[in-house]
């Protein structure tokens, strides 16, 4: 039985024999217990009588985000992403930052977000959440910094490093999407909607730059994946890198375009409503 705290890059050959990562289980159980605890013990005091503590849509959104988070962090996707397939890593990153984080945020009712952001230790998070531009810079800064080959190749073989990267990706995405979703709280709705559209356009365009590096580079960029034994036969490190780059373009685009369409139409609806009121 192969047990490690967290998925990290390994030097041995890839095996389809299950690996066990208790660190991931502890984190997932803590997240679920934390959510249930907050809903059960704080919920009744935070909503008006008769109002639901958590809507069905919120519970469904949190459940979907939670299950997807576990699926892409644990074996086999997490292990493949940590050190065997750059494509798996890219899939994991895209899901963390563009699907799982928004699902988890939608799964938290507004009172829960406020409760979390009221924590003394998280005042720096509140500062970022109230400033979408800084949150946008953080999100893209994390994307750029954690994908610098030296940093990625140094952190990925370490269990702590790999765990840190997972936490930082998810954390930056949670901050960014909270800032984007809750922008109305801090600015006028029309400004918030315009900003939301702009930031989503921004995160649609920026990843095409590293994506281009991956697709057009003659040689593998990351030593971790260059020296990994092949998890899929006849799928070279270069093929893997090209596919990862394409995934960054192809898979990221539809997700972001859907988000953009939703943001744009809600902006348009808000403007129509406002002009109707005038």
């Amino acid at each position, binding site marked *: 039985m192969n047990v490690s705290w967290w998925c990290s890059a390994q030097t*041995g050959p890839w095996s389809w024999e299950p690996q066990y990562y208790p660190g991931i289980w502890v984190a997932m159980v803590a997240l679920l217990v934390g959510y249930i605890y907050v809903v059960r013990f704080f919920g009744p005091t935070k909503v008006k009588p008769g109002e639901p503590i958590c809507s069905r849509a919120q519970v469904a959104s949190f459940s979907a985000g939670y299950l997807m988070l576990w699926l892409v962090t644990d074996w086999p996707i997490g292990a493949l992403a940590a050190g065997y397939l750059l494509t798996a890593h890219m899939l994991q990153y895209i899901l963390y930052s563009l699907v799982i984080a928004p699902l988890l945020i939608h799964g938290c009712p507004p009172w829960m977000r406020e409760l979390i952001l009221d924590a003394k230790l998280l005042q720096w998070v509140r500062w970022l959440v109230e400033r979408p531009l800084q949150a946008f810079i953080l999100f893209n800064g994390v994307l750029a910094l954690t994908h610098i080959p030296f940093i990625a190749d140094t952190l990925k073989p370490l269990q702590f490093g790999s765990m840190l990267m997972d936490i930082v990706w998810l954390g930056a995405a949670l901050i960014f999407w909270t800032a984007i979703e809750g922008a109305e709280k801090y600015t006028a709705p029309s400004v918030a909607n315009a900003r939301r559209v702009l930031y989503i356009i921004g995160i649609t365009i920026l990843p095409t730059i590293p994506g281009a590096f991956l697709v057009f580079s003659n*040689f593998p960029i990351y030593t971790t994946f*260059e020296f990994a*034994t*092949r998890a899929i036969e*006849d799928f070279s490190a*270069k093929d893997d890198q090209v596919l990862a780059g394409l995934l960054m373009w192809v898979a990221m685009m539809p997700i972001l375009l859907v988000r953009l369409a939703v943001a744009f139409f809600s902006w348009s609806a808000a403007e129509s409503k406002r002009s109707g009121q005038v």
Partner: protein
Amino acid sequence: MIGERLTVHLFLQAFKKHVSFHSLFVCAFVFVAACQNVDSETAVPQSRSEQIVIELGLSGTAFPAAFEKPDFVLNNVATGQPYDFRDETRGFVTLLYFGYTHCPDVCPVQLANLAAAIDQSPGEVRRSVRVVFVGVDALRDTPDRVLNWLEFFSKDFIGLTGTEEQLLAAQEAANVPPAFVDAEFEGGYSVGHAGWILLYTQDDLTHLRYPTGVRQAAWAHDLELLVIEGWPE
């Protein structure tokens, strides 16, 4: 007690007065520079080959003195005919690797990276390079097995096999430690073998060996340089 406190206080005052942040920074810089100086002194090349490796930015490790291309004959797995290594590879930049086809990590990664690097190289380089793989696991590296395994990486790689005695003689001729079977390795038996690739330049001498961990870009750089420029005299 008061005297001690006073001494510490006076020392801190003097420290604050005379040792500024800038001077600490300069000291740190000098210290780092001195350390780097020590490193660069230890990196002085010991032989002409090492000097060439540093000058050309090659990724291989230089031998203090060049070896002649070994003289051995093994069985070519593609043709089934004897393969005279020295004659067949004369004038080519030749890479010789002793490995085994059941190797779970080092051999496949080395060969895959080498194949990818050659594939990305200009036609002149591809035509001037020969990669020869010797399967040292006499029991399991059958000609068919070696042939199929090598085709997975490149159809241009040359595979050789032989009897245990022939393989031993070939390794001795090439100055590599002979491979050995580790029967107690978990999950079957493993083969301990030289992990490096020997590179013979067009002068039919080996000046370099390449350890595991050489990147594709480095292979491509070195092969292009050695094919086009040759080994400097």
